[in-house]
């Protein structure tokens, strides 16, 4: 029983990752873009924008598992991202251990921290939980400023975690006699990890635990009645989401080579929430789309702002709105528009486009 283009004939077909021929072609194209893009785009600026976007996408997948799939609102994401960066600084920098160790170490530390916070979710939900996790950001800020041996206090700390797996050093790749720049290597590393994390998350949500998470999200008491251990899944979702966030934080720290406590603030948490909303709650693909959108749009506007009439690009230049103000305004407008017109986010738009072509010529 193979999959059919537009007829689902078994439950197994429903769950296939790349069931249709079109999906396979799409996957091939994605792999090709992933491999070729850094060799075509040499520009450090665009590569570094895309690297930050990829790191954000990893973090957003973590938040989407928690908020989109399990319905637990968290404003504390920035706390876990920050803790991951400091684990990378200690394990990768001070102890000079290789990439797999500091990346998994950060994920483990995140899981432990998430496990400590998790039990709160058993008694609280909705707004109450949002406020409790909001507290995390402020507790975190106090910790980062005062745990000087680990975080360097207010001055921040250098992160010298080397992105090397054995002989393969992503800071300066040499393949087949061709040498690649730091940003090219990092692009492959980060987007490779995005693919791995996305695949893990996707496999989780299309199996039994994933269905349990969604049952808890939709009606946790009903889920308890039919035998889902809601408490266990809530804590588990929190641990998993924090682990992924910490891994993203570790990557962020290692790429930027320096982090300071000013970066893990409430604004970062809110930005992540915006990303999963704009991308699409309860979709893995949406987390990546949202990160691309929120991360790359400001850079695009910034790059081509001199072509937009009325935008001021330099001090003493003319124009009535600065690039930054334009970016902020657009960002706000987009969030409003998405919530009002497209609650399922970018992923929803994508689904509708797909359905249109699938059901053509009987599209509606």
């Amino acid at each position, binding site marked *: 029983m193979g999959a059919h283009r537009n007829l689902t004939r078994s439950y197994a077909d429903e769950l296939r990752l790349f069931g249709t021929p079109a999906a396979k072609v799409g996957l091939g194209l994605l792999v090709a873009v992933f491999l070729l893009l850094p060799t075509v785009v*040499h520009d450090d*600026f665009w590569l570094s*924008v895309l690297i*930050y976007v990829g790191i954000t996408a990893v973090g957003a997948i973590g938040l989407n598992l928690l908020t989109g799939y399990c319905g637990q609102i968290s404003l504390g994401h920035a706390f876990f991202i920050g803790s991951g960066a400091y684990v990378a600084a200690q394990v990768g920098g001070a102890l000079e251990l290789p990439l797999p160790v500091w990346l998994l170490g950060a994920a483990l530390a995140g899981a432990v921290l998430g496990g400590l916070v998790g039990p709160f979710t058993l008694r609280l939900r909705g707004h109450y939980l949002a406020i409790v996790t909001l507290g995390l950001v402020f507790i975190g800020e106090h910790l980062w400023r005062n745990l000087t041996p680990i975080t360097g206090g*207010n001055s921040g700390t*250098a992160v010298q975690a080397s992105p090397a797996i054995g002989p393969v050093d992503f800071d300066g790749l040499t393949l087949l006699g061709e*040498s690649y720049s730091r940003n090219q290597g990092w692009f492959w590393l980060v987007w490779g990890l995005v693919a791995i994390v996305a695949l893990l998350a996707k496999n989780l949500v299309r199996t039994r635990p994933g269905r349990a998470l969604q049952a808890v999200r939709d009606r946790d008491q009903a889920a308890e009645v039919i035998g889902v251990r809601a408490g266990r899944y809530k804590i588990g979702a929190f641990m998993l989401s924090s682990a992924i966030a910490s891994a993203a934080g570790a990557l962020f720290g290692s790429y930027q080579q320096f982090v300071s406590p000013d970066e893990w603030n409430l604004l970062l948490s809110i930005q992540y929430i915006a990303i999963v909303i704009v991308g699409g709650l309860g979709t893995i693909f949406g987390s990546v789309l949202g990160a691309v959108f929120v991360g790359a749009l400001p850079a695009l506007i910034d790059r081509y702002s001199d072509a937009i009439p009325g935008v001021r690009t*330099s001090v003493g230049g003319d124009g009535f709105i*600065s690039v930054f103000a334009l970016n902020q305004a657009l960002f706000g407008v987009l969030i409003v528009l998405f919530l009002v017109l497209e609650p399922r986010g970018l992923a929803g738009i994508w689904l509708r486009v797909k359905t249109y072509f699938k059901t053509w010529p009987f599209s509606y």
Partner: protein
Amino acid sequence: MRTNRRQRHGVLAVLATTALLVAACGGAGDEGGSQGGQAGQPGNTAGFDGTTIKLGVLSPLSGPTAVIGQPLTNGNKVWFDHINSQGGIAGKYKVELVQEDTQYKPDITVQRYNKIKNDVVAFTQVLGTAPTLAVKPLLESDKMIAAPASLDAFWVREPNLLPVGAPYQIQAINAMDHYLSEGGGSTDSKICTMVQDDVYGEAGQQGIDFAAKEQGFTVANTQKFKVNTENYAGQIGALAGAGCEMVFLTATPSDAGKIWGTAAQAKFMPQWYAQSPSWVGALAKSAVAPYMKQYVKIVAEGTEWGDESVPGMKDMIDRVKQYAPQQEPDYYFAFGYNQGRAMTALLEKAVERGDLSREGLLAASEELGVVSFDGLTDDYTYGPADKRNPPRSSTVFTVAPDKPFGLVVSKYNFTSDAAKKFEFTKADG
């Protein structure tokens, strides 16, 4: 099913190999170095096309810190407008600024740095401590020079940085000296500090602690506060309760205004000394001005805006009239203007050596001697990073609402013995 899967894997493998083969031709080669130049006639290099030298500016041109970034960048611009009107660097190479908005965020700063690093010979401004620390590893690996717009002490020993001005610690030490010798204080006075909870606050506190050791007083009470707090009643209450007769404040303008407002309402009237970034001209027009006029002194550098007796100031005012008539009197403007002067000295030296490449600029900075700022800030002895000697002098100002920028000189350009003894070390990491 089984065969299907195997076929699919085969297709993927073929795809991947082709991609890798194509990718193998796409490595990023090294950025070209400078093509042979000679003394006085440097060859073309990244950011220099034989006629125009491009310099980068990484500054918060938007957001809350733009009140500092905008005038500071304008100061860079006015200085180079003046240089260009003289024909340019060495009389023949015009300077062009490439401005990028960092929003005062380290990650955005890194992106912007990457965006323009191959189009400029150096960065004439990177504003803020955290953004500077974020690009520092990149500066080191790219062999690039940048001038930080922040008075932190650990820039002094960094070969890739070109700081100007007397660091915050020096301001604090000189302020204490002024209080003990002329401000009516003695070593038995109740001396306290109020600092914001970040790197900048730590720098001020470090200066006071050093002065305490050197001059033999003790700090009776220290209050920390978070940037942009709404309510300072707790800290002010604690300082008043400790009976502080003098408080040294390390803050930024919006907090400083609220702090003095709270103190005035609480009838808490010590002698305040505040670090230069605590002040902004608008404070002189606020309702707290009478209180500040009586109890607040600002410790900074140079002289008041429009003081004709200092030659550097007279020139600067003339150039502002000519190139930026809209510019309000502003302390940060003068800082940016001074940065331009230091960068010009470096570029002149590099042109003289005939090499404007990154390595050439680093070598030129090793050979750079004393640079004078015409009284806007004291002379800076550049050269190898471990031998540099920044200015150790400060100027104490009192608040005077009728003056431009709201400050009048109380004691011009003095150096305390303790400030001469202060040792500068590198940033960690």
